[in-house]
């Protein structure tokens, strides 16, 4: 399998990675009627079981190189959708299609899981628990490379340096353990690890929410750069509307598992149609904003 050498600023070169991604026919992600139901035991003595619908009928399509935001508050189902997409959660209904292949059913074999891993990767929210604390950065990325790509040890070593460079880390930072890195740096490692698999789609589950504001800006810029250079598709889960504006082209707004609004990010944020979307927008602190009681809980 060709290794992708992506140099900073070398926009004109068509890298093998970009070639691989462009070969995907049709949308990178296509989801229809996605549904997730949890059985919750409740009531006296735990004898009664309720069905809790976490996600009800979400449908969307994401083209290669585009970015989709999924917005909502806690309990909206946005994280559940992310987990279903990458296979950490089973699907109760609907279909998921990634890079032209259906993944609605749970992966039956390790090789199928690996294949799906090479199509879609995830970056989690908390940089402090998303890396193995005992594994050096180099080892962590090396493991992913060995899993998905055929390379010699030297080629892998070279690739690790390239990946670290791509996310703004130095070779020296590859040798250390996660505890020696800051939150922002660890998140860069998580991104590098995801990129190592050369996926067609990257799912970012509140990937910048736990970072300091100044670091957030760095990572947002980094993500935008990477998407531009590799033509990867992003699914960006967030509760922060301003960040979503900066990172996505299209957005889905979720309230309690239901999609209440969907479309171009700009249009939704400038001229929202749904009451809930308007409420979300009205709650964001901005210059000139004054807090007022909204009476929700």
């Amino acid at each position, binding site marked *: 399998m060709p290794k992708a050498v992506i140099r900073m600023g070398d926009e004109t070169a068509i890298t093998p990675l970009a070639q691989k991604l462009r070969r995907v026919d049709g949308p990178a992600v296509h989801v229809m009627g996605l549904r997730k139901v949890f059985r919750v035991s409740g009531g006296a003595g735990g004898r009664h079981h309720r069905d809790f619908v976490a996600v009800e009928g979400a449908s969307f399509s994401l083209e290669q190189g585009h970015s989709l935001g999924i917005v909502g508050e806690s309990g909206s189902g946005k994280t559940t959708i992310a987990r279903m997409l990458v296979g950490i959660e089973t699907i109760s209904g609907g279909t998921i299609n990634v890079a032209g292949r259906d993944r609605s059913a749970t992966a039956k074999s390790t090789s199928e899981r690996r294949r799906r891993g090479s199509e879609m990767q995830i970056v989690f929210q908390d940089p402090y628990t998303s890396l193995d604390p005992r594994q050096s950065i180099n080892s962590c990325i090396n493991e992913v490379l060995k899993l998905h790509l055929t390379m010699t040890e030297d080629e892998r070593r070279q690739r690790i340096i390239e990946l670290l460079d791509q996310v703004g880390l130095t070779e020296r930072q590859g040798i250390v353990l996660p505890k020696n890195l800051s939150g922002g740096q660890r998140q860069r490692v998580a991104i590098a690890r995801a990129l190592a698999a050369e996926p067609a789609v990257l799912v970012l589950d509140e990937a910048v929410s736990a970072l300091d504001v100044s*670091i957030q800006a760095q990572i947002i810029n980094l993500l935008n750069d990477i998407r531009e250079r590799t033509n990867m598709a992003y699914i960006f889960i967030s509760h922060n509307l301003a960040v979503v504006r900066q990172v996505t082209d299209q957005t889905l707004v979720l309230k309690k598992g239901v999609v209440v609004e969907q479309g171009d990010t700009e249009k939704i944020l400038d001229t929202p149609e749904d009451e809930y979307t308007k409420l979300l927008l009205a709650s964001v602190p901005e210059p000139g904003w004054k807090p007022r009681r909204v009476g929700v*809980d």
Partner: protein
Amino acid sequence: MTHLLNIENLSVDLVVHRRYRKVLQDVSITVERAEVVSLVGESGSGKSMTARSVLNLLPAQGKMSGDIAFDGQSLMNASDKDWQKFRATRAAMIFQDPRASINPVHRIGDFLTEALVHNRGMDRHEALARAATLLEQVGIDDAKRRLRQYPHELSGGMLQRAMIASVLLIEPELILADEPTTALDVTTQADVIAILDDLRAQRDMAMLFITHDLELAAAFSDRVAVMYAGYIVEISTPTQLHSRPLHPYTAALLRSRPMLHERTARLPQISGRPLSAFEAPPGCPFQDRCPYVQAQCGGSLPQPQLINGSVVRCHRANELELVSTVNAEGGHSHG
């Protein structure tokens, strides 16, 4: 007229990785009666530590120097008993994570009335009645039923409101709020902040509000103090902050924030990462990340200066014309 809270030259050392290290340096700030002052900063800024120092809630081996005076009286040499009394009657804290700060095996009613019954000797029924009233005021319906519930039966937003209620019940003169809404949804945050501000204003309570969100602080504070690496680098009013920030860090922080109504090609980012006090180089702590750095910045620590009613620690404060938005056409003087 004495300040309600007067922190002067407060420095705090804590044990980090087996050694004493500075986490707060020479912090001076006042809070007047019924005033809202926000401390804004990123990781390592020392904002949370400042609030905890006021209530003497530092980790066991913390060392404080400087002075903290409440209503004219210094707290530095107060006995444990005095501190307890202070925390029980005159100042109180709202914590970030209500689930970590409220005992899960006690009912909400017990939690709310504990301080009143034990410290003020109030009758339990009267305390519960007051608690119920306050719960309703903070937006929790069916208060009587809620009083009998346990924390795990309430959502995060409701629990935080309950914590606010518990603080208001004590009727302190000063509320310290340590990131009280960071763990909440944005709609809940808006509601909770509005309630907190309303009730506080009704009762003429002062508030020291800790947050990482500069816009949130600017929305309802009388004054905002920006902290970096254990120092206060700027104290200003919200209007001044937006029209003319004085410190390069403040300006950069405001500009690096993504905007709700506009997308830029690239967010103006600050290189490097926020430092803690003990990681800062000699001289100005922000020098390694500052776009306006000069030789003098590494030489000596900038002292607080008063400019147009704002306080700023920057050698170049008088020359720089900083702006807070990306597209403003304001000129920068590059020295």
